């Protein structure tokens, strides 16, 4: 007997929702300034950490009559999954954010179209891991141990200079690391240890590190903000696995201006792991020309110089000049560890499994 009322209410509700849905884009979309001719619409899928200056993207849009919209696809693994699952009917034209540990997976799934561009001439060969030029390098960063300078100064303790040092009793319980099964820096640090001790020796290293009371958490956020004493989270451990650029971020994002970074990275040979991030044109894009322009734009000096302070990574383009904060406080490792992407792809699961059994069980 009241069904009519219910239905009319429901109809009203549905209409309302539809309106709300339709109203959203108009309410918040950044107003594009349309140049002559309809701009080509380009979609770029990235991982969540992607960032860029608004002015730079606007310039690119105007110069090329291309309208760029971004989709953030979760962390590196989630974003790659999206690309692989939507292969054939791609979600986007360009995908940025596959790193050297996931590179083989992306290439095996054959999601990229090759792009040969003269821009590659400005990028050292060591970064160009895909000889077929489907995935082009954009930036790199080092996963390193960060330490709390004040702690080591106060305790008059020497900073560890190698992985072996970490096993010494004076560093007992001072290091926080991330679980390689759930965290990308955690995985990178595990791989640095494999590069150092080999596939036969790394479990032994981790067993000893466990005996030396290493703290393990699942994600970088917890490790850095809850465990690390050098961050604002005021944690118990004065060493944490983070990035070589984190000390620069501590200065740039200080709430009271600092003339010295409160933290620093251990960059001794072999203790950092180098991650390279790649961009590629997704197979099946109807906008290949615009996509190529955007990829070249990402490799250009302009974009490469904007990147460091937006994402706290290093440019691969050798012509790009580093910002002052980077030159002063960020540390790139001179001899970082690195593993062959194909080897990583073949063994990632087994390594993580072995690590889990050694450190957690």
């Amino acid at each position, binding site marked *: 007997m009241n069904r009519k009322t219910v239905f009319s209410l429901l109809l009203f509700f549905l209409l309302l929702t539809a309106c709300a849905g339709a109203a959203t884009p108009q309410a918040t979309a950044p107003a594009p300034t349309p140049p002559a001719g309809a701009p080509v619409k380009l979609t770029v899928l990235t991982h969540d950490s992607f960032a860029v200056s608004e002015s730079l993207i606007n310039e690119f849009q105007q110069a090329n009559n291309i309208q760029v919209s971004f989709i953030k696809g979760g962390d590196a693994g989630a974003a790659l999954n999206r690309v692989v*699952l939507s292969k054939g009917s791609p979600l986007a034209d360009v995908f940025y954010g596959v790193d050297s540990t996931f590179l083989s997976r992306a290439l095996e799934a054959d999601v990229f179209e090759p792009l040969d561009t003269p821009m590659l001439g400005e990028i050292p060969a060591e970064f160009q891991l895909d000889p077929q030029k489907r995935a082009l390098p954009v930036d790199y960063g080092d996963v390193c141990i960060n330490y709390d300078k004040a702690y080591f100064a106060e305790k008059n303790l020497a900073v560890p200079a190698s992985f072996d040092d970490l096993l010494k009793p004076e560093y007992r319980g001072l290091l926080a690391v991330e679980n390689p099964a759930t965290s990308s820096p955690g995985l990178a640090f595990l791989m640095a240890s494999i590069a150092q001790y080999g596939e036969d020796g790394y479990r032994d290293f981790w067993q000893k590190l466990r005996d030396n009371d290493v703290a393990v958490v699942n994600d970088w956020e917890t490790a850095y903000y809850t465990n690390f004493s*050098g961050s604002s989270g005021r944690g118990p451990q004065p060493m944490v696995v983070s990035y070589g650029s984190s000390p620069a971020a501590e200065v740039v994002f200080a709430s009271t201006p600092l003339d010295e970074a409160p933290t620093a990275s251990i960059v001794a040979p072999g203790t950092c792991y180098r991650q390279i991030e790649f961009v590629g044109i997704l197979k099946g894009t109807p906008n290949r020309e615009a996509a190529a322009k955007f990829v070249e734009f990402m490799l250009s000096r302009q974009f490469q110089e904007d990147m460091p302070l937006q994402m706290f990574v290093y440019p691969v383009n050798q012509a790009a000049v580093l910002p002052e904060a980077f030159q002063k406080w960020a540390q790139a490792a001179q001899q970082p560890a690195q593993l062959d992407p194909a080897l990583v792809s073949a063994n990632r699961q087994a390594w993580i499994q072995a690590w889990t059994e050694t450190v957690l069980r």
Partner: protein
Amino acid sequence: MDGDRAAVSDEATWTQRRGSARQMLLLWALPLVFLLVFFFTPLAAIFRVAFQAESTGEAGIAAAVGRSLGFTVWQALLSMLLTMLAGLPAAYLFARYSFPGKRVLRVLTTLPFIMPTVVVAAAFNALLGPRGLANVFLMDAFHLQTPPIRLLNTLGAILLAHVFYNTTVVIRMVGTAWAQLDPRLGQAARVLGASPARTLREVTLPLLLPSILSAALLVFLFDFTSFGVILLLGGPRYATLEVDIYIQALQMLNLPLAGVLSAVQLACTLLITLAYSRLGGREVVPLAPRLHGEGTTRAVTARQKLVVALLTAGIFVLLVSPLAALALRSVTRLDAERGQRGAVNGGLTLDYYRELFVNRRGSLFYVPPAAAARNSLLYAGSTVVLSLGMGFLAAYALARRSKINRVLDPLLMLPLGASAVTLGLGYIIVFNRPPLDVRSFPALIPIAHSLVALPFVVRTLQPALASIPVNLINAAAVLGASPLRAWREVELPIVGRAAAVAAIFSFTISLGEFGATSFLARPEYPTLPIAIFRFLSQPGALNYGQALAMAALLMLVCAAAILVLEKAQD
């Protein structure tokens, strides 16, 4: 006893009438189509992909399932029992006493529900961590060398966080039913000589049983599929099915194993829901609508005052103190803490709030706080409308007697057991081209939220609808009220309170949800939780401070909205 109750409920509530096939079809049509399009289709799609892909060894799968299933059930059971233990006395407090600040306190108890886990982990650390307030205080007071409380990365932390998150479910669901309970029943029992304990055991609790069971089921399922709490507070030694699904799907890129684990999780959800309906969550006793506040009293005797004071204090310690610690941190100059060793000026500051409004790096993805709040509210509002629309239809259908309900009722609960990761990947496969396109259809977010909210809405509305005494409606009709008027003036007041509770549930579920949002959100329309994560993903005091400030803002927005919703119900 059972026979008596059956006699009472038979035909006594109008909604217990048998529903004709046509009626049932009409009522079920929309909710079913909704579930079919937005739940079963994407789920089927991802399962098809997962099971077509090459499997990586059957033996490993069985071991992986066995390992996490046991722990998942165990921690969910413990968490649920503890949550009931904390929630039932609190529900009693809100249902039976009126005291100054009651409304505000009830809103505060809801806030944990919306807080992102990362922020809650930070709050727990601020309170109970190795250098948290509690440990520092105890170490100073008793001259201890090591922190006495070692909670983080233990089962205790998981249980505590689950109680912190879900007590509000018990307070809202059981508390509302309790407040609507005719106080004369209890008074009659007392007059007839029953002790307060006996009255509680033999009158009050049996009458509240449907809502207690509903709350227990929902809390159990929430804990059963827990993800963030396990990952961030439990640490790497604990993994639930949901955590394993996440690791396998997104980190190991092992979709077949992720598929098996999700299927197991769904099957368990189905079994649990079936067991619940067997347990008799459907027995209904007609309730005459009570005047608002009729059953509540002020605390007069010393004993009553003590009860109110103790319960309020308990709620403060358990639910409010972590939130307060967060809010406090968001206005504390954080460099000072690390600078205790150096000379950095400490004290209070509003810098982090001010900084929220500045796009210092000129970033394309800068989130203005007002825009994030607006997006969050828009998504949450749409979720309320959508889930209440669907929920009312389903609840009306469920309140009628029909065989089809026995099949469809458990289906409604399934979205609670579906892993967010699995469903998210399914959405990407299915909603890949216009008109339903992940890229250009922001409504997918409230739709995904509604899937999670729907079980809450139905479980809240259905008992209220089912309990309306048929003679009240008949009386209204005899006295000349049109069906519409009878609905408005008899049914709505009874259902109104339940509807407000349902609205608050779907609102808070949407506001706090992160998994589906991060999967489906366009960067142009970030929500408050997404903004919090963006800040926390980079080092630096400003980022940390702004994340906490944004979290405080999220609490504020949510509290204001709930107050409005609660006012609307009166």
